[in-house]
């Protein structure tokens, strides 16, 4: 289980996160929804070790990972698929995937992971020799997801995977997330698309200007009036 207690993050003089606590049980999909600037990305980046100025404790499977380096956290089985895809545009699809497995040394297992990624995303196999930058937006998002899975993480954190995608592709992304979850991976999902996220989430937290204001089961929040008026356009 991933457990966050009283996490605070400062950027310059601004308090981006004002002491939040949350839990992600193993094997579940947990989502964090909220408006722009609520601190969703900061939370994920803190867990991944990309933010240094933080206080509070983050523990993964009873182990304190608060002060670990990004590569150490990844080695613990916690991977981040960053916001805005951030694939490597000058590297081929295959090279992108291989870099996703950078921390793994077992070559056969990496080959297997590549096969698995191609099975999950057949389009990537067709384009394995193309440069990442030449893919379409949807394909890039698939590549970003596949790349994040290459380290074979137990917990996959996804930052706005549906951002800037056509409605049909958004559905596809949510379908893939559920599939990843079914394979036994724990998912922590950050989304602006609250409707889609709440539909697949086991549990959800609502973040507002750095504080958690609401939490509950995904389906319950879908019917919650405050959520409907603020995030679901009701």
């Amino acid at each position: 289980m991933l457990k966050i207690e009283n996490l605070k993050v400062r950027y310059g003089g601004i308090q981006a996160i004002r002491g939040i606590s949350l839990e992600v049980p193993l094997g579940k999909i947990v989502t964090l929804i909220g408006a722009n600037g609520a601190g969703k990305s900061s939370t994920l980046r803190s867990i991944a070790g990309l933010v240094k100025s933080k206080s509070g404790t983050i523990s993964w499977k009873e182990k304190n990972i608060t002060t670990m380096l990004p590569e150490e956290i990844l080695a613990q089985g916690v991977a981040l698929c960053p916001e805005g895809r951030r694939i490597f545009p000058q590297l081929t699809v295959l090279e992108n995937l291989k870099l996703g497995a950078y921390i793994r040394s077992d070559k056969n297992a990496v080959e297997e992971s590549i096969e698995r990624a191609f099975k999950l995303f057949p389009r990537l196999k067709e384009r394995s020799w193309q440069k990442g930058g030449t893919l379409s937006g949807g394909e890039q998002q698939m590549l970003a997801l596949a790349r994040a899975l290459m380290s074979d993480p137990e917990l996959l954190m996804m930052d706005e995977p549906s951002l800037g995608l056509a409605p049909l592709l958004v559905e596809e992304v949510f379908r893939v997330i559920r599939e990843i979850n079914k394979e036994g991976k724990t998912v922590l999902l950050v989304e602006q698309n609250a409707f889609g996220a709440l539909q697949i989430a086991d549990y959800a937290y609502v973040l507002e200007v750095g504080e958690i204001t609401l939490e509950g089961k995904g389906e319950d929040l879908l019917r919650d009036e405050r959520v409907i008026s603020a995030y679901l356009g009701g």
Partner: protein
Amino acid sequence: MKHSTKIILNIALIACFGVFLFWAQGNLDGYKVQILNLIAVNTILALSLNLIYGYTGMFSLGHAGFMAIGAYVCAILILPAAQKEMMYILEPVIWPFSVMHAPFFAAVLAAGLVAALLGLLIALPVLRLGGDYLGIATLGFAEIIRIVFTNITPITNGALGLKGIPAYANLPWNFFWCILTIYVIVKLLSSNFGNCLRAIRDDEVAAKAMGINTFRCKAISFAVGAFFAGVGGALMGSLITTIDPKMFNFQLTFNILMIVVVGGLGSITGSVIGAVVITILLEWLRFVEYTVEIGSFVIPGVPGMRMVIFSLVLLLIILYRREGIIGGYEFSWDDLVKRVNARRGRK
């Protein structure tokens, strides 16, 4: 193509080139041989900057500084003690620099190592900076080196510089180091480490999220680049036999940057071809600086005019052909075979 075939082809290519060099040494005049030498040295320098800037994305303007370090370390090591004693007229040369002596190969190696060490030293604080800030910081570093070398007279002979450096850097030596540089950098970049460097260049945050220790990779890349810049500086010093601190100004860095950009950022083939083209053009374009007489009309020559032309060319390339003159193409035997076969198929 099989790996062993490629090795044989590489050796054959180097052998052919060796024969050409042997012929050039005997049959070309001194001026042309000197240009060939400069091509080798410029290739080394361009590749080292391309590793830092083109492949790792660190905008570094400190190359002249590393070259200065390399040139001075090598020169002090290969100058005979008696000659040093005579040359240092402002202040006598201090021990142990007065008696240091090493064979040429060891001196060039030492030049590279000292440059790499200093590169690593400044990498620790400045590599945390990104983009333009890194450019300014490394530019400052190069200036500091220049000023320090002007003022540590008992070691560097101050503003007078060092003269009569033994001219060991002939065609075989220069091209030996040139080919070694190409080999090392190609090996480095085709390994997984090379992919890490490119990943850092493309997106550093994403590279970190992949578990890549970006700082370590950047520091290694910077140090290797500094090493070969030091080697290039050492060869340059021995080639022109005279060095002084003023020589290692920003103009020198700019020339190398120009080769890298013209050849194409992130292309080894581009850097080699860029070095050949720019080195030859820099010499050939000297005619624009001569006084021209058309009948009774006299156009006075303007020193530095060729740099104006080069700056314009650079501007045009950045505007219209950002991937460099050869368009980001990278030479490989497989690709050559494919092209030849495609041509045969058409006939």
